[in-house]
C-alpha cells in the first residue's frame, strides 16, 4: 500500500470511532447506546455523574471490558463489528494504537521508574538504548528529571501519575485514554498532573479524558461529552456544553459543580 493511501485515510477517518456500543454487567445495562468519534489531534472530555458508565466506556475502548453490541473502529478498521471482536492477533495490533492512564496509576511497584517506562517498548522489540533515551526525554517533559532510579513508593501520587503518563507515551500511541487521572490525588497535587496533560493537548496529542475537573475540561477540550445512565446526553463544543447547556440533566449536573 502506498504512503499516500495511508495518509489519505488518516485525514479522512477518525482515530477512534464507536458506534451503538452496548455493555451490561449481568442485568445492569451500563452502556446503552454510545456513539462517538475522536479525530486526530483532538481532545475529547467525558463528564458525568459517578456510575454513569464513563470508565466502562474507556475500558471497552481499551478492550478491558467486552462489549455486547456495536462497533469499535481504530483508524477506520473494525476491532469490534456488530458485537463481534476481531481475532486476537488483530486486537493486539490495535492495542499498539492506544495508551491508558488509570485513576490509581497502576505502576509496577517492583520496577524503578525507568524500568516501568522502558520495559513495554523493549518487549515489543525496540532497541534498548533508543527507548531509554526517549524515556529520559519524557521524564524531563513530565518534570521528573533525575527520578529515573526511584521506585514508585518513593514518589508522591502526582509524580506517580506523571510516570504513568510517560510510560503510556513511551509506546508512541496514537490516542491516549485518561480515566479520572487526578481523582486519587490530594488536591494540591492535581495541578501538576493537569499541567502535563494540558501540555500534551498543546502538542496535539489525541486524547479522551474522563474527568471531574470542569474548568480543566473546558480549557483543553475540542469537544465535551456529558454522559448519564449509560447514554450520551449532550455533546459539543466545550463553551456550548459548559456555558449554555441545552439539556436539563446537563444543567443540573453542572450546577452541582458551580456551587
Amino acid at each position, binding site marked *: 500500500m502506498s504512503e499516500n493511501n495511508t495518509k489519505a485515510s488518516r485525514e479522512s477517518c477518525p482515530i477512534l470511532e464507536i458506534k451503538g456500543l452496548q455493555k451490561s454487567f449481568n442485568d445492569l445495562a451500563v452502556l446503552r447506546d454510545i456513539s462517538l468519534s475522536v479525530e486526530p489531534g483532538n481532545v475529547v472530555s467525558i463528564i458525568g455523574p459517578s456510575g454513569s458508565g464513563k470508565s466502562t466506556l474507556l475500558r471497552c475502548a*481499551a*478492550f*478491558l471490558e467486552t462489549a455486547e453490541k456495536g462497533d469499535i473502529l481504530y483508524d477506520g478498521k473494525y476491532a469490534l463489528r456488530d458485537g463481534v471482536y476481531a481475532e486476537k492477533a488483530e486486537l*493486539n495490533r490495535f*492495542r*499498539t494504537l*492506544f*495508551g*491508558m492512564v*488509570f485513576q*490509581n496509576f*497502576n*505502576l*509496577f*511497584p*517492583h520496577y524503578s521508574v525507568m524500568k516501568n517506562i522502558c*520495559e*513495554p517498548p523493549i*518487549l*515489543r522489540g525496540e532497541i534498548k538504548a533508543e527507548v531509554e533515551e526517549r524515556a529520559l526525554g519524557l521524564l524531563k517533559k513530565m518534570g521528573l528529571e533525575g527520578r529515573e532510579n526511584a*521506585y*514508585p*513508593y518513593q514518589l508522591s501520587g502526582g509524580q506517580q501519575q506523571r510516570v504513568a503518563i510517560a*510510560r*503510556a507515551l513511551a*509506546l508512541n500511541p496514537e490516542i491516549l485514554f485518561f480515566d479520572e487521572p487526578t481523582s486519587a490525588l490530594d488536591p494540591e497535587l492535581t495541578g501538576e498532573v493537569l499541567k502535563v496533560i494540558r501540555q500534551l493537548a498543546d502538542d496535539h496529542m489525541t486524547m479522551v479524558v474522563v474527568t471531574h475537573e470542569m474548568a480543566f475540561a473546558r480549557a483543553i477540550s475540542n469537544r465535551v461529552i456529558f454522559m448519564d445512565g449509560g447514554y450520551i446526553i449532550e455533546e459539543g463544543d466545550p463553551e456550548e456544553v459548559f456555558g449554555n447547556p441545552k439539556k436539563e440533566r446537563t444543567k443540573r449536573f453542572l450546577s452541582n459543580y458551580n456551587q
Partner: protein
Amino acid sequence: MSLLTMILKMGEGLGKTCAIFFLTLLFSLPLGMVVALLRMSKNKVISAITRFFINILRGTPLMLQLLAVTYGPYYLFGISVSRNKLIPVVIAFAINYAAYFAEIYRGGIESIPTGQYEAAEVLGYSRFQTFMRIILPQVVKRIMPSITNEVVTLVKDTSLAFTVSYQEMFTIGKQIANSQTSFLPFVVAGVFYYIFNLIVDRVMGRVEKRLNYYK
C-alpha cells in the same frame, strides 16, 4: 554410650535429614505453583478436583500419607516396598508440602490488584509475560513470611520419616533411645533441629531483606 558417640551416630543421619529437606523443597515449590494454577483454573471441574485433593492432603496427617505412599503400593498391588525409602518419603513430603504451598501461592496471586493485570495488558504484555514479570515477583515478596513458616515446619517434619524407618537423624536417635533406654538422644535431636532452624531463619531473613527494595 557416650554423648559424643551418640551425637556422631545421629549426625550420620543428618545427611538424610537434609536430603528430605532439600529434595522436598526442590519438588514442592514448583509443584505447588502448578497446583495453585489448577486450583484457580476457570474450568470448574479442574478447580474442584484440585481443591478436593488439597483438602485431603491438608486435612490428614502427614504421617498417614507417608505410610500410604511407602506401603500402599505393596498392600494394593503387591509391589515390593522400595529398598531406598528416600523415594517414597520425598514423594509424600513433596506432595503434602505442594498442597500447602499451593494455597499460599493462591493467596498471594489473588492479593495482587487487578489494575496490575490491566496495566500490563494495555502495555502489550502477553499473559505469560504479565505473570512472570509483573505478578510473580510481587507474589514472591508478599508470601515470603508464609513460606518461611512452612520451611521451618518442614525442618521439624523431617522427623516423621521415622514412621517408615528411614534412617535419618531422628530415626537413629529413636533407635538409640530405645536400646539405651535414654532420653538424651531426643535432647540431641532437639538441639539439631533448633540449630537447623536458626540457619533457615538467617537465610530466609536475608532473602526477605533482599526483596525489601520496594514496598
